[in-house]
């Protein structure tokens, strides 16, 4: 059974068919890379999978379970998490608070109006652990507005990891990072255990190719090539799209 | 009860509402500014008309001058205040709300607390027979004016360059800017136009509604309902919405005077639940 199986997925905005027909199957524990030129519909595909956008047609299965009609927030509870290409964090709060919000989202405690959020030992501990995984533990109590872009990227990843998802969707986690930061994040991604299935969108081929076993090339809302690293790199279509041949 | 008369009154009132809310809808659609001074501008136009007429200016000239005066004021509000708050919607709500209180109080100071009626222009007094039924001529006149304005506005929006720019601005402000439309100037123009229409409607409405403190608070919710019903930025929506509201308001007051307000707002509630973007508004993704 696939961890994530997308079939016949379609979405258009007005007349613009952003997702024409996407079929995708990702095995449990797999590292899948999605590449494609700007505007190919990669981010849109993620939003469809998480339910932030509603597809016009198609099916999405998470470990065999049809989730296309499940509201976005329930999909998080089913073990689906994502990060955002455009950083979407809580500016006014500390790093720890950001990650704790991620944890709280899956906890029944989120409805509790009586206890003190800042004193929830279990959340604090798990939040600090998630920050430690991305190497930001020492700045846990710093407000997010006082952090660098690279640090925020890592908070994005920490938010995703904190939820302990079964399937994690990473949207350009290396975007805007320095070479050193890239190396750090690369190490961090490599350390994620294989009970987490990862689908990653990335433009930077060097870091991405090393990470993924299988690669899907998306172009104009369609999967044009799919296969192993070597297959995809050698495929004439890939060369056509990327080199304009 | 004379149903025909009630119907005519409803339609005339709908016409007035259209003059009022077309501007509101355009300003809201193009600039995303919920202009809470709109009722005040209507009232201010009416008071301008009162003063002009008392100085011996003819009714129609007073209506035009009232419209122009309010248009200038609207332009000033946009240039001096709203311009400083680009994209800050809440701040714009608060500024226009604050201004509406200031205008209301200034009017109370200047024109006092008693209702003032504007006399119907001599040529339109009395009743006319249409299809064998007698209607007050002035109300027929208001209907004709409203329809004429609707046609002119529609033609302006659909057939002129300015209209094309406004439509582009409503559809996609970013894109409009990107293709070189001078959006700031456009904003001022639309704000002037919308304000001027409200002021003009105030004078035209004078013989029907008369002018009194609180007229602004009576009219603003009606414009809001029209726009919520019709959809923001849609002229057709404002047109249809105005007549729906005009009919509901007048029939409600005649048949269920105590609950007229509830009757008026019910369709708005239904539209909100069923189609939040309004009947003619484009739903945002």
């Amino acid at each position, binding site marked *: 059974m696939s961890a994530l199986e997308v079939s016949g997925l379609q979405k258009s905005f007005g007349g613009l068919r952003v997702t024409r027909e996407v079929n995708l199957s990702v095995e449990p524990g797999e590292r899948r890379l999605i590449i494609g030129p700007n505007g190919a519909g990669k981010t849109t595909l993620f939003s469809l999978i998480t339910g932030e956008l509603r597809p016009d047609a198609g099916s999405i299965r998470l470990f065999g379970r049809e989730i296309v009609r499940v509201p*976005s927030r329930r999909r*998080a509870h089913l073990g689906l998490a994502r990060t955002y290409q455009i950083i979407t964090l809580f500016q006014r709060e500390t790093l720890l608070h950001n990650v704790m919000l991620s944890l709280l989202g899956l906890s029944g405690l989120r409805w509790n109006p009586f206890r003190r959020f800042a004193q929830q030992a279990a959340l604090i501990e798990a939040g600090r652990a998630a920050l430690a995984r991305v190497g930001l533990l020492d700045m846990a109590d710093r407000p997010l507005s006082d952090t660098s872009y690279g640090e925020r990227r890592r908070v994005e990843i920490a938010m995703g990891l904190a939820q302990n998802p079964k399937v994690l969707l990473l949207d350009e986690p290396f975007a805007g990072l320095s070479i050193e930061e890239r190396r750090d994040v690369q190490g961090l991604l490599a350390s994620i255990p294989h009970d987490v299935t990862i689908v990653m969108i990335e433009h930077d081929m060097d870091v991405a190719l090393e990470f993924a076993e299988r690669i899907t090339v998306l172009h104009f809302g369609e999967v044009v090539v799919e296969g192993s690293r070597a297959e995809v790199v050698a495929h004439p279509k890939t060369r056509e799209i990327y080199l304009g041949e | 009860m004379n149903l025909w008369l009630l119907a005519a009154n409803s339609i005339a009132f709908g016409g007035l509402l259209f003059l009022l809310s077309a501007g509101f809808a355009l300003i809201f659609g193009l600039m995303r500014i*919920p202009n809470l001074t709109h009722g005040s501008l209507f009232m201010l136009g009416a008071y301008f008309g009162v003063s002009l007429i008392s100085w011996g200016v003819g009714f129609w000239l007073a209506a035009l001058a009232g419209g122009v005066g309010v248009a200038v004021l609207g332009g000033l509000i946009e240039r001096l*205040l709203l311009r400083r708050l680009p994209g800050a919607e809440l701040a714009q709500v608060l500024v226009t*709300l604050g201004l509406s*209180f200031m205008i209301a109080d200034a009017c109370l100071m200047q024109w006092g607390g008693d209702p003032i009626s504007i006399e119907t222009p001599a040529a339109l007094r009395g009743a006319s027979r249409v299809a064998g039924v007698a209607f007050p001529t002035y109300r027929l006149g208001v209907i004709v004016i409203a329809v004429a304005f609707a046609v002119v506005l529609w033609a302006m929006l659909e057939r002129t360059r300015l209209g094309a720019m406004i439509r582009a601005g409503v559809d996609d402000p970013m894109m409009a800017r990107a293709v070189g439309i001078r959006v700031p100037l456009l904003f001022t123009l639309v704000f002037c136009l919308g304000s001027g229409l409200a002021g003009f409607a105030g004078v035209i409405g004078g013989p029907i509604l008369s002018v009194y403190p609180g007229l602004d608070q009576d009219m603003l919710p009606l414009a*809001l309902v029209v726009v919520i019903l019709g959809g923001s930025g849609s002229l057709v929506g404002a047109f249809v919405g105005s007549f729906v509201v005009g009919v509901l308001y007048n029939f409600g007051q005649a048949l269920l005077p*105590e609950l007229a*307000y509830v009757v008026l707002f019910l369709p708005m509630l239904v539209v909100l*639940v069923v189609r939040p973007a309004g009947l003619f508004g484009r739903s945002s993704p």
Partner: protein
Amino acid sequence: MRRLAALGSLLLALGLLASLPAWIGNSYYVNIASQVLLYAVFALGLNVIVGYAGLVSLGHAGLFGIAAYSGAILITAGYGHFVAIAGALVVTLGVAALFAVLALRGTGLGFVMITVALGQIVWGVAYRWISLTNGDNGVSITSRPAPFGLSLVDANPFYWATLVVFLVAVAAIAIFVASPFGASLRGTRDQPRRMNALGYNVWLIRFLAFLFSGLWSGVAGLLFLYYNQFVSPQTVALTASAEVLLMVISGGTATLLGPIAGALLVVIMKNVASGYIERWNFVLGAIFVAIVIFMPEGLVPGSLRLWRWATRRRRQHPAGPAAMAPVPHGSINGGAQ
């Protein structure tokens, strides 16, 4: 150490508040203090939705007024105070739920416009449904409740009763805001989309917050009814909604002290202004415009910012270029989505 200092100032404030009638003397001023407290409860309630949920309501006077009207109508119908208060709160919560369902169909501007419209419906009902509300003449009641046999007829006991309600409101809202639910609510204000993807039910969170906000508005409305022993359409007018919104934003949204400071400011100004000038509404409007243009983050944080900026400037650049002090994140100018 800091804890101790905080506890000390809290106790001092409590002592000052409780002994206020003793040192203020005059019952006219004690009554104004009661007004400040009851409006502070209202502003605190509105702040839940404006400050913490980031949804600006201009219809809250409708909820405040519905509580006052329901209480007044039940009392004139012969029910006791307990039934009237309970009934009024139930009605207010019901109406708040209806308001929330409708207003939450829109966010941002849509929410504002719908709340304006809903508030105006309540006004229209108060004004026109004469057989129920007595129209323009309003409804009067002739008695105040006497909890545990203590009469609230005089200014001082009424003040103390209001103070108790006020303190309960402050405590309840402080606990609410600091709770996991409060954190969720602020999350939906700042990043609703992400909150949804993180597993939160954004709509339900906002709905519940609206009910909570409506509850305190209703409590304040009942205090208002007992304070004036009268309620009229004026109580539910758009001006009334604007006034309480002014309290919230002038003091600073999303803070606990802001709405209280705002209520103090507005009530005192209103009473002072009405002594010297008739034109309270003009002043109210002018303050709105001035605050939005010059102090978008509210008077309390705004004054602090200007003060810090001025003092630092004096120290560092005695003749530096005249630059506007930076406006921090979270002001009303930038906070709207």
